[in-house]
């Protein structure tokens, strides 16, 4: 939490002003009872009407000043806390922007989203609370007690005794309630989990006629949670009444001892009345402060989660002195490359060596988990190899400027993510100022022009967040078009034809070949039909290349390939 709060430095000016105003606010709150006691002792008891009116006017001024400064505190506190959180969010987004697959895998996309939004909001709300309370409470305590001692030491002792009792008591109740709160959260999660399961699995539940069992399972969880939350609420219910009781008993003590002091003529009635009110003010300050401690655990967890992300150094950074190759040939070469994920002992791919030549199609095929995608994601440096080198145009990819490297590659990832905007903005993703002709040409290659033209607004038809309003096959074609719209001379397709029917698949591939005659094309696929015409096919199994050659060569020489080809292509043969 403290680590994160270093960012508050930028708001030092606001914070200093806020603290000054807090002093004014505390001062005015404490001055009101003091003035009141003067009115009683000098005005009322001595019957001085003029004094009463003058003191009253001074009190009004104090009140106005106090409220104005309280509003000022609110202004600067919101400005600093919200601004600080805005900065943090910005910093976080930029930081995450530099993350590569590895870091995204480690934290998880949805968790990163939560941390960038909800967690920061929690910190924001807590921080405002903190600003407004944490400084005020000690000022009120110290100020109140000092004033009380000025009036009368014996009576002030009552305050001094009350304070620790309140603090101890607050800590006790909150301490015993926290564990229950936490277990309650777990129980609530369970209740919601069952509801979610019942909704997402409604077909299965009914198919197995398990409705009554599910109802029972839910009832048990519901009962469990209801009891836990009732317990915790009852515990919290003791807090306010008992606090009030302590304060009120403190008041009684003040009156008892005050009564004696007054009858002995040591102090006056107004002094006693002022003391009672100091007690009240101190109590409110302490209760507000206890709220901070109640909110702190949650907020500090959020802060830690944010700091955790900020402290992750992305594994892949730009080369310090980037090299630029002399020629844009398009040759991609792997030299004995090995890649492992995280702490896994077994490498995802090992000892990969091959060269993909311009004007040719190089294909990778193999079962899921055989490491095909892991191989190609090293070309644009989405991951870096553990050992070995990947070269593009004869230079190690790690020596490139990242932007420069990626400009050379038109990459279609397995998941065709689209972004909110229009169809045009998605195809022209690499260059906002792309000409309409170029967009259309790319769409034609991807066989997307047809369905785009049929849309109401054509190329300007809106795409929803994440591309959810576009069907799977269309999304894939738009992702292909996005790659085809770049000036790249290396094209990489990671299982990018899977959602297309056979006819479209073939048409797209043919169009790509025709339009990228001198480009290097690398295709990853599961369907033999997609890649059987490639110039070179690499067969992968358990992270290794176990076969290399053309379709015919592999059919004869690679048993794994022959097996895949048989199961996928034999379907006609058996019956015909």
């Amino acid at each position, binding site marked *: 939490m403290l680590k994160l709060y270093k960012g508050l430095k930028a708001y030092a000016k606001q914070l200093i002003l806020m603290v000054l105003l807090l002093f004014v606010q505390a001062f005015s709150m404490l001055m009101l009872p003091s003035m*009141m006691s003067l*009115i009683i002792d000098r*005005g*009322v008891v001595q019957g*001085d009407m003029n004094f009463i009116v003058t003191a009253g006017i001074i009190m*009004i001024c104090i*009140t*106005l000043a106090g*409220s104005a400064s309280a509003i000022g505190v609110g202004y600067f506190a919101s400005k600093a806390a919200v601004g600080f959180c805005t900065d943090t969010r*910005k910093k976080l987004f930029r930081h995450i*922007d530099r*993350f590569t697959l590895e870091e995204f895998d480690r934290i998880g*996309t949805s968790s990163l*989203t939560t941390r*960038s939004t*909800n967690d920061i909001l929690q910190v924001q709300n807590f921080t405002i609370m903190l600003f*407004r309370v944490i400084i005020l409470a000690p000022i009120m305590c110290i100020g109140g007690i000092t004033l009380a001692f000025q009036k009368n030491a014996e009576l002030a002792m009552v305050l001094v005794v009350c304070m620790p009792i309140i603090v101890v008591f607050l800590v006790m109740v909150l301490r015993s309630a926290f564990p229950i709160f936490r277990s309650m959260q777990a129980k*609530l999660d369970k209740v*919601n*989990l069952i*509801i979610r399961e*019942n909704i997402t*699995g409604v*077909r*299965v539940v*009914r*198919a197995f006629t398990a409705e009554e*069992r599910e109802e029972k399972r*839910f009832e048990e969880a*519901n009962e469990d949670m*209801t009891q836990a939350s009732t317990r915790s*609420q*009852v515990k919290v*219910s*003791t807090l*306010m009444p008992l606090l009030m*009781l302590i304060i*009120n008993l403190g008041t*009684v003590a003040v*009156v*008892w001892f005050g*009564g004696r002091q007054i009858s002995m003529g040591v102090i006056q009635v107004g002094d006693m*009345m002022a003391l009672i*009110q100091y007690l009240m003010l101190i109590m409110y300050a302490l209760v507000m402060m206890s709220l901070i401690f109640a909110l702190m655990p949650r907020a500090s967890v959020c802060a830690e989660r944010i700091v955790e992300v900020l402290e992750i150094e992305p594994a892949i950074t730009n080369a310090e002195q980037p090299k630029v190759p002399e020629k844009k040939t398009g040759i991609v070469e792997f030299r004995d490359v090995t890649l492992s994920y995280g702490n896994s002992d077994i490498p995802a791919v090992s000892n990969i060596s091959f060269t993909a030549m311009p004007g040719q199609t190089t294909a990778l095929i193999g079962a*899921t988990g055989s490491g095909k995608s892991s191989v190609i994601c090293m070309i644009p440096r989405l991951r870096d190899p553990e050992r070995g080198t990947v070269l593009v145009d004869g230079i190690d990819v790690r020596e490139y400027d990242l932007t420069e490297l*990626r400009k050379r590659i038109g990459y279609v*990832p397995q998941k065709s*993510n689209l972004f*909110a905007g229009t169809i045009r903005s998605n195809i022209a993703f690499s260059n*906002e100022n792309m000409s309409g002709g170029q967009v259309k040409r790319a769409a034609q290659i991807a066989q997307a022009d047809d369905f785009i033209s049929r849309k109401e607004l054509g190329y300007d038809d809106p795409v929803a967040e*994440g591309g959810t309003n576009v069907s799977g096959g269309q999304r894939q074609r738009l992702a292909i078009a*996005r790659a085809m719209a770049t000036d790249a001379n290396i094209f990489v397709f990671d299982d990018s034809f899977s959602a297309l*029917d*056979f006819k479209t698949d073939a048409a797209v591939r043919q169009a790509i070949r025709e339009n990228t005659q001198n480009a290097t094309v690398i295709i990853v696929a599961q369907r033999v*039909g997609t890649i059987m015409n490639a110039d070179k096919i690499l067969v992968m199994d358990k992270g290794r290349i176990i076969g290399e050659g053309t379709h015919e060569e592999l059919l004869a020489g690679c048993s794994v390939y022959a097996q*895949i080809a048989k*199961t996928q292509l034999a*379907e006609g043969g*058996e*019956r015909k």
Partner: protein
Amino acid sequence: MTKKSPENTSAAKRLIGYLKPYRKKVALLLICAVVGVIFLITGPRVLGTATNVITMRAQYNQTGVLDLDVNDPGLAGVEEIRENVDAEGNYVGAPLNEGDMPVLKMVLMILVAIYGLSALFTYLQQKITAQVAQRAMFDLRENVDRKIQRLPLNYYDTHTHGDVLSRTTTDIETISTSLQQIMTQLLTALFTIIGIVIMMFTLNWQMALIALVVLPAALFVCSRIAKKSQTFFKGQQEGLGAVNSYVEEHYAGHDVLKLYGGEKRAEREFDEMNDTLNENARRAQFASSIMMPATNLVGNLGYVGICILGGLLTAGGSLTIGAIQAFLQYMQQFTQPIIQTSNIVNMMQSTLAAAERVFEFLDEPEIPEERKDAVRIEKTEGNITFEHVKFGYSPDRILITDMNAEIRHGQKVGICGPTGAGKTTLINLLMRFYDLNGGAIRIDGVDAAEMTRQNVRSLFGMVLQDTWLYSASIRDNIRYGRPEATDEEVEEACRMANADYFIRTLPDGYDTVIDESAGNLSSGQKQLLTIARAFCADPQILILDEATSSVDTRTEKLMTDAMKKLTEGRTNFQIAHRLSTIFDADLILVLKDGDLVEQGTHDELMKIGGVYAALYNSQFL
């Protein structure tokens, strides 16, 4: 206060209806609230008396005379003094400075008792409220869960999971957190305000008038600020929502962003949204932060007013110092309930909106009741006939116009057609997830509509692509369809389904608990488990969905193998994405645009040269 819409009122009424079963406790808590408040507001009054006693003593010590108004309400309860006042109003009792001040002691004892009782009753009220509110929420949750089981499948097909989930979880939580707060605070706050006003008027009407000015002024200021800050908070929420979906989209597509050099643009767009959010959030926070000082300002002005007016009145002799003190305390007690009330009024709006959404869900039409004279089939041969089946998801859009088919015991039926042709519709009808618009599906000659739904479904087993597993051990998941299955039977089912081996490699074997999204299992393993689940349930008729493409070849082989074993001797329906799986089917049903267009064996259909043949040929180029 804001005007409520009729829906809101009825939602409020129904929500209150949930308290009805606990009306005794509600009555009790109301009594506790009233009693607690009475004690709470008597406190300052009695404290004022104590102060008066002290002042009188000081006066008596200085002058030797006590000048008293016998009817001073400040003396109420101090009989000892009242009884010892002579006709001129002079105190003639025992000297007050003697002994340990018996009168003051007595007053303070009363005060301690009052404070103690006030604390006790406040506690009781809060405790009972917690119990009642939590119980009422329990009932509401039960109703919602029961509703989930009773809604027709049509509801789930026409509403997104997100919508249903937010009604059944988020909305319920909103209600549950605020219901208790409303119940505890609103009543006490209102009682306190009323009580204080009454007390003030009985003490001194001129000063009470100050309170009467302050009260509406504070309420007005509060509700204005609350309203304003609500609109700002809505702005903050919207800004946050925009940032959230932007961030989500960009994190999900981060590789694309990098590959196509979109980082700079993303930063620019993000900054814009972030700045808007900053602006909205700052306004919202500021608006809500002035609520307290603004109300305090009004309250404090009242405080000052009482000091001045009270001082003048007391100096003039028509008011006691104790009364000023009581007034000052009342003024301080005033602000808290006012702020609470205006907060609660705001909270009520969102709570009622949530309640309305929940009640809307609870009001959805349910599945028609099962017929009382239902025919029961314990065991079926697995003969199924479709007789002039007519069906559409809505009566004005009939998809299946007139479907006839006859399936005999042990046959394999393939269902195929282009995506979106309505393959799942047939499952929906077979399982009676939906009812027909005409015709009948007969199982061993019995119209399925004449059986209970549960009876129909118990005859079928389903293995779908959507591998739903629930958070429990693997063992419990396998016996989901037959809870009475023994451990041996469960393991036997897994062996048949080729799942036994991988289950044993898991750290806890059969007792491994499946995570929420079953993230600890691969999708192939999950599919094997659903096959094992079907084995364990041992149904007489099966519905199978072909394996997804996300399964590697080895697992796929295990699955086809297991499916083959599972279908042996059972009538089975197979949904095919690749035609190779259904070449050998006894009957192939070809669907297009929701309706059955062709049926027959592979060879027969090829001869027709229609939809099926076209589909078949498109697989080979």
